[in-house]
């Protein structure tokens, strides 16, 4: 499979390079759907310019990247395009190899569990690796051409997934720590990582077992240790803790209400002052809140749990962009065998397509033509998020249904022998 992969990589790099050279690059770099105040390239350049002027980039409210990004781009700012293309390539390759490894394990497991009443497993062989959809997804291409640092975040998350699936605890903890350091939300990926690694090392997931707690302690120690090291390194870059409120305080308290494809901006633009803190806490807790229930339900399927967590983060985070959506959409082909159980594919795909095309139109009408107002753009945001939620819950339903069939058989019959229908009760 190496030849198709390299062919695909070459094609993807060509598309991106062509777009970088065209005049569309500047246009795309300004679009609010693709860049957000935390990921915009213009702000990275501004931060570096402030550093050149002798002013700390965190003394103003324009730069919200972590100090490691300053470290990185201080040296490679002239090669920014290559850096972002490389990040995309790393993400794709890491995901490809991770899924290949995962497939091997899945096949092995199912060979052992081959008993009677299994429905045809050849569906599993039709799994395509996520490389194609990630590299050729228009969202990813837009994100790369805009030089949004979301691409770098995605690369780190992909490396984390790869090292988790390979079973390397230390690397998994380090990459997860890097991802959390960049934006706080990947913290929820701790649970699936731990579950997967425990599964791989045959540690039973049981609260009463000492080995369970011992493993958790180990993983958390590695994770927190690397986080501590990173935070100290960031302190020594500029010699102050200014970056903490600028980066993490910004992500959590959402002071900047620039429109994006998420739910936060208009909500907090129209919020009554009295309730602002309350709803801020509610919305932020909403992202972290599904971790434990999902982990309990999906403790035997940690990779699907990773997918669910990524999707929840991308939909409910404070400043989402299309780059975040591209990351979890990259996983959809891994579950392509669930296709027969999906119920809303037509609706969801139509809505997503329509919304993606309506975003720039209604933005233009609001900001440039002045004939629409912010409600139009907000409505499309709502629709887009509903479609995403529908997509994710659809896949969840299909996954659970497939698990049910695997245990109880595909063709179910009622007591009187007629064809049965399954419902959730």
């Amino acid at each position, binding site marked *: 499979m190496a030849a198709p992969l390299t062919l695909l990589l070459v094609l993807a790099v060509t598309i991106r390079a062509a777009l970088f050279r065209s005049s569309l690059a500047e246009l795309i770099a*300004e679009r609010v759907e693709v860049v957000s105040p935390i990921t915009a390239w*213009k702000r990275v*350049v*501004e931060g*570096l*310019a*402030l550093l050149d*002027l002798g*002013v700390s980039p965190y*003394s*103003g*409210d*324009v730069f919200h990247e972590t100090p490691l990004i300053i470290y990185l781009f201080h040296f490679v700012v002239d090669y920014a395009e290559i850096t972002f293309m490389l990040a995309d390539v790393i993400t794709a390759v890491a995901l490809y190899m991770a899924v290949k490894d995962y497939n091997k394990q899945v096949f092995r497991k199912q060979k052992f569990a081959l008993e009677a009443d299994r429905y045809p497993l050849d569906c599993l062989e039709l799994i395509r690796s996520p490389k194609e959809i990630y590299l050729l997804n228009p969202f990813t291409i837009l994100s790369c051409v805009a030089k949004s640092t979301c691409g770098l975040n995605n690369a780190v998350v992909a490396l984390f997934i790869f090292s988790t699936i390979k079973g390397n605890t230390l690397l998994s903890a380090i990459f997860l720590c890097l991802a959390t350091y960049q934006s706080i939300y990947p913290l929820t990926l701790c649970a699936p990582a731990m579950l997967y690694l425990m599964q791989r090392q045959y540690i039973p997931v049981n609260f009463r077992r000492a080995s369970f707690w011992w493993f958790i302690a180990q993983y958390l120690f590695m994770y927190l240790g690397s986080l501590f090291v990173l935070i100290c390194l960031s302190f020594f870059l500029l010699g102050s803790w200014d970056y903490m409120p600028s980066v993490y305080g910004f992500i959590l308290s959402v*002071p*900047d*209400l*620039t*429109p994006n494809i998420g*739910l936060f*901006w*208009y*909500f*907090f*633009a*129209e*919020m*009554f*002052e009295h309730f602002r803190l309350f*709803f801020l806490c509610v*919305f932020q807790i*909403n992202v972290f809140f*599904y971790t434990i229930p*999902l982990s309990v*339900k999906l403790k035997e399927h940690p990779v699907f749990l990773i997918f669910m967590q990524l999707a929840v983060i991308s*939909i*409910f985070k404070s400043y989402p962009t299309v780059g975040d959506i591209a990351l979890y959409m990259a996983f959809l082909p891994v579950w392509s065998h669930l296709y027969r159980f999906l119920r809303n594919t037509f609706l969801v795909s139509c809505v997503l397509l329509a919304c993606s095309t309506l975003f720039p139109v209604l933005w233009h009408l*609001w*900001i*440039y033509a*002045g004939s629409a*107002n*912010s*409600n139009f753009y*907000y409505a499309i945001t*709502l629709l887009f998020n*509903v479609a995403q*939620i*529908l997509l994710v*819950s659809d896949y*969840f339903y299909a996954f*659970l249904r497939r698990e*049910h069939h695997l245990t109880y058989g595909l063709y*179910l019959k*009622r007591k009187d022998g007629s064809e*049965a*229908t*399954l*419902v*959730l*009760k």
Partner: protein
Amino acid sequence: HYAAAQKQAEPAVLQPTPQPKDDFQEELVVRPLHSGDIYASFQFRTLWETDFMRGNKVSHYRLFPKSLGQVISKFSVRELHISFTQGYWRTMQWGQPYLPSPPGAELWVWFQDSVTDVDATWKELTNVLSGIFCASLNFIDSTNTVQPSASFKPLGIGNVTDHRFLRYATLPREIVCTENLTPWKKLLPCGSKAGLAVLLKSEKLFHSSFHSQAVHIRPVCQDWQCKTTSWELRQTLNVVFDLHNSGQGKREWSLFKMFSRTLTEACPLASSSKIYIDITDNPEQFELSPATSLLSQAMVLGDRRTFSVYDLTQQDTFGSVRSLNLLIRWKSTEGDMLRPLLHAERYVAGYGLQTGEIHTLMYNHHPYRSFPVLLLDSVPWYLRLYIHTLTVTSKGKDNKPSYIHYQPSKDRVRPHLLEMLVQLPPNSVTEVTVQFERALLKWTEYTPDPNHGFYVGSSVISSLVPSTVAMDTNSTRERPLFSSFFPCKEESSYFVRVYTEPLLVNLPTPDFSMPYNVICLTCTVVAVGYGSLYNLLTRSFQIEEPSPGLAKRIANVIRKMRGVPPL
């Protein structure tokens, strides 16, 4: 004050207690402008040799207004400059003003070194001044206050260089009206009852192209050795009457036409009360009556001007009719004005409500000299400047500023501050551009008329401009050789401060009628997510049994009650 002055006209014997030495002077300068408009500038100066600091309570106020004296001592003010302006000064048509001021309200204060919490003192000071001048200076807060590092040096004595004690704020939206003029007039020793202040009638003063009233307080040296210092209070009022609006199109001005009053006496408390008419262009351009023999020459803004002086303390100025009504009649409209050497413009470029660009143009009209200017820009936080897009070009080429001080803004806390030292090449236009992004504010942060736009205060351009007239490279006068080598005449450079126009910028607005709807709709979407995930997490798949018909269900209920197995 007036009654006390009458009593003091009697000869005084030796007083047991030493009187504080204070002195009041009033002056009016009238300058006919080439466009047919007329520029009148009032200055009222009170000098008082006293010490507000060092804790000694000053309680005997005579000429100095008590409210301002208390402000100085309570807030440990070293210098205070406040101005209220209606209209924009058109430099290219009117020349340079004697005292420049930006549209709206402007306040800048130097505090004494003894102040520990400058920000708290500033806040209290603005609120107290807001009460004294009946203006909404209470809108000055940390979001429009800056600490310039180079543009506003102290104008009085004092060699302080620590800019922590300086605060500068403008309110470009502030409107000036009679309500602000009345308390300003009350601060004068004679009020508006005697002297030049009787001319200050609001119905004529506000019917003008430009109106600016200001108060400047600073410590000055009393003698040339500076052994004693005194406090100087200057109240200035600049007004430009329009040829067509107030002058009815006739190029003929008189005190009565301008102010609807004539002068009858000087202020008895004033040690000097004079009117100066700028007659440098007389008699070719206009004629002046009643004539006066008093003449005075002064170097003003790099130009030697001649003035006719009317001394109001002399009784014969008022003539037999006991009133003075100066008449200025234009004879011809030819002749050109001395072109001002430094001039600036500013505008917003771009389209749409997402981004924009601020362009500042600075014109240097000197034929052969370049000089540096300090540009101070204070932009509110909701226009996010990108300093890496700052470009300075002169004559099409890049002109790198030699000093840039930039303090980025913090959302809802402080504005941007950009100060640059730019060298302007001779006879050129220098363009400074910087890109910005417009922020979406919370719905409560918009003014009641959000589509009017948001004001950005004027840029301040300060410079020492070399004068063309005083610079005489081939000296034709008779002078000894030892003094004529270096090209230096009486005033070869003069300080000029130019204010640009304020900007009006539109921001994208949310829909103000929608808060409840938005909260409901967004919470619905979140609930949809929550609901679907909750369903899938808490329920499991079961085979659906078809529910029996109604009759069968009732029968089953009865059978259950009887204890019989159901159908």
